[in-house]
């Protein structure tokens, strides 16, 4: 009896909710004052879906976006969301769906996985939402098969990684042993950075003795680096696909007391890496201008919303940062 009663109540609640129209009322009335004659166009809502906001890189990205929004508040509404760690794909799908439900006009997303987010993004695009892909490129095959087209705004990860690798290799002798700690293996940007490191090491004549995945996480990289140091006593450098992992690796190197002998390279140029750069525990990193990445993505989305054709991919600048240039960018070699 109670089962039936409860099921009925539930059904009624869902039905009742379904009947209510989705609220899309504009949050501010400034438009009305400006153009009384025409009906005010509501500001489009742009949803910025990040990876883990615990990673300083994405926090900087979000901050940059918010600063841009503050300067252009009249043009659009911004909603920023992130997931709790680098690998919670299910949660990121939830965030995409929620953005859709909230009536977002565009979604600017740094996907945690290059393939798994495709279905949810395609569903969003089918509802007329503009999708802009930043930071980690969606898998081209999967996107094509699903019929998803999203412009990519981001750096050439491979080239940037190559440059970091060379900066590190400069301080080594030919034939030295090096290791690579890569990001999540199914992330496109991670794959690209690994390839870039390999390019660099090959060009400089170094011996790559190990490649392992740290899943972008500091803890994991720390453990992996510690293991590498004991397994390869003659190792001379560990290059990591992001700064979080580089910090972890540098800590392992320091704990083993081999800081001057083993060089560490990173990627992202987060604030936390700067002291390590000055102290010489990390040799080089790449600055993707995180604060700009999101902004470029948002600008791209706004352009499409205003009527421009779906943008082509846009490559963003990357600067290599070393201890010497920690205060400013270095010219490309």
């Amino acid at each position, binding site marked *: 009896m109670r089962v039936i009663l409860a099921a009925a109540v539930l059904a009624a609640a869902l039905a009742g909710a379904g009947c209510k129209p989705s*609220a899309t009322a504009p949050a501010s009335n400034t438009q009305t004052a400006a153009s009384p004659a025409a009906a005010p166009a509501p500001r489009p809502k742009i949803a910025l879906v990040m990876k883990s906001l615990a990673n300083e890189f994405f926090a900087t990205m979000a901050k940059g976006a918010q600063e841009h929004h503050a300067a252009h508040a009249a043009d659009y509404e911004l909603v920023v969301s992130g997931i709790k760690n680098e690998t919670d794909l299910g949660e990121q799908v939830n965030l995409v769906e929620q953005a859709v439900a*909230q009536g977002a006009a565009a979604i600017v997303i740094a996907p945690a996985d290059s393939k798994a987010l495709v279905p949810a993004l395609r569903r969003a695009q089918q509802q007329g939402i503009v999708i802009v892909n930043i930071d980690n490129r969606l898998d081209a095959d999967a996107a094509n098969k699903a019929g998803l087209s999203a412009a990519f705004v981001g750096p050439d990860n491979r080239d940037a990684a190559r440059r970091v690798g060379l900066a590190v290799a400069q301080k080594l002798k030919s034939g030295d042993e090096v290791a690579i700690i890569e990001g999540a293996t199914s992330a496109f940007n991670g794959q690209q950075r690994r390839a870039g490191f390999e390019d660099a090491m090959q060009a400089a004549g170094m011996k790559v003795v190990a490649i392992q995945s740290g899943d972008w996480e500091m803890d994991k990289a720390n453990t992996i680096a510690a293991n590498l140091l004991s397994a390869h006593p003659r190792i001379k450098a560990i290059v990591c696909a992001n700064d979080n992992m580089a910090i972890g690796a540098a800590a392992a190197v320091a704990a083993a007391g081999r800081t001057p002998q083993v060089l560490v390279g990173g990627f992202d140029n987060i604030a936390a890496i700067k002291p390590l750069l000055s102290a010489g525990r990390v040799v080089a990193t790449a600055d993707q201008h995180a604060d700009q990445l999101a902004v470029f993505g948002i600008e791209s989305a706004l352009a499409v919303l205003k009527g421009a054709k779906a943008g082509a991919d846009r490559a963003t600048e990357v600067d290599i940062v070393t201890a010497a240039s920690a205060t400013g960018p270095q010219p490309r070699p």
Partner: protein
Amino acid sequence: MRRRQFPPQSDLLVLLLVLGALVALFGLGTDGFLGKATLGSIANRIPALMLVSTGMTLLMVTGGIDLSVGSVLGLCGAAAGVLMVDDAWGLGPALAASIALGALVGSINGWISVKLRLPSFIVTLGMLEIARGLAFLATHSQTKYIGAAIESVGAPIAGWVVSPAFLIALGIVVLGQLLLSRTVFGRHLVAVGGNVEAAAISGVAVDPPRIWAHALLGGLTGLAAVFNCSRLGSADPNAGVGFELSVIAAVVVGGTSLRGGRGSVLKSLLGVLIVATLEAGLVQMGASEPVKRVVTGCVIVAAVLADTWRRRT
């Protein structure tokens, strides 16, 4: 001396009230929350949680617990992914295989806990690690992209708001409640969980219900794994990390006791809805991830306190 007694129906009402209050709160506090789209998106993200909470309720009624459900979710999803991509199995057979694998793992958990008389907490803690490792091995630590073949289950049905996954999960919740309240098996579950010695003296075989409850939970987790994969179009070996905590939270909020003997699948469903609505609402309001976790944790503690207070009066 008769103490004032709250009728059991009142817990159901309290849960509905809390749910209603949350919906109203978020509906007023944000825009778009009460729309079909948001509620639909909540409905479509919870089928896995609904299924596993149903199974977990039945198990917790017997006094057991399973901490490995998150890992098993990942493992079964990985198995389904591998079968569909590498061996070109269809959705149906892969689904059956996932359920079977989950049931097998559950049976192992159950058999070891019951026959060797080890606390299920410890046994499933070990299985949590084993299953997760196996999931990574099966997929070579990479997400396995499956594609359209699996997506139809989790995507909203054209014209409706909800997905087939949600409807199937709802049906199973109803079946689960009927199993608990209207079958001999259900009675045995309650008897074993409430007082196993009295149950034995009363002539109830006390081992089979517990093992079956573990197996059932495992099978439901296998089904949930496929639903989960359909949302990503892929099998993610990391799927389900921390999932067991969400399940236990939902079941506890729904009023099932961790000590066994009392439980209701229906109330666990309300627990699921409350937890999911809370999370969705907090995201809608722009709360950061840490804030979400703190608030959700407080709600769970409040639910347990309310339950304990009610028992004392």
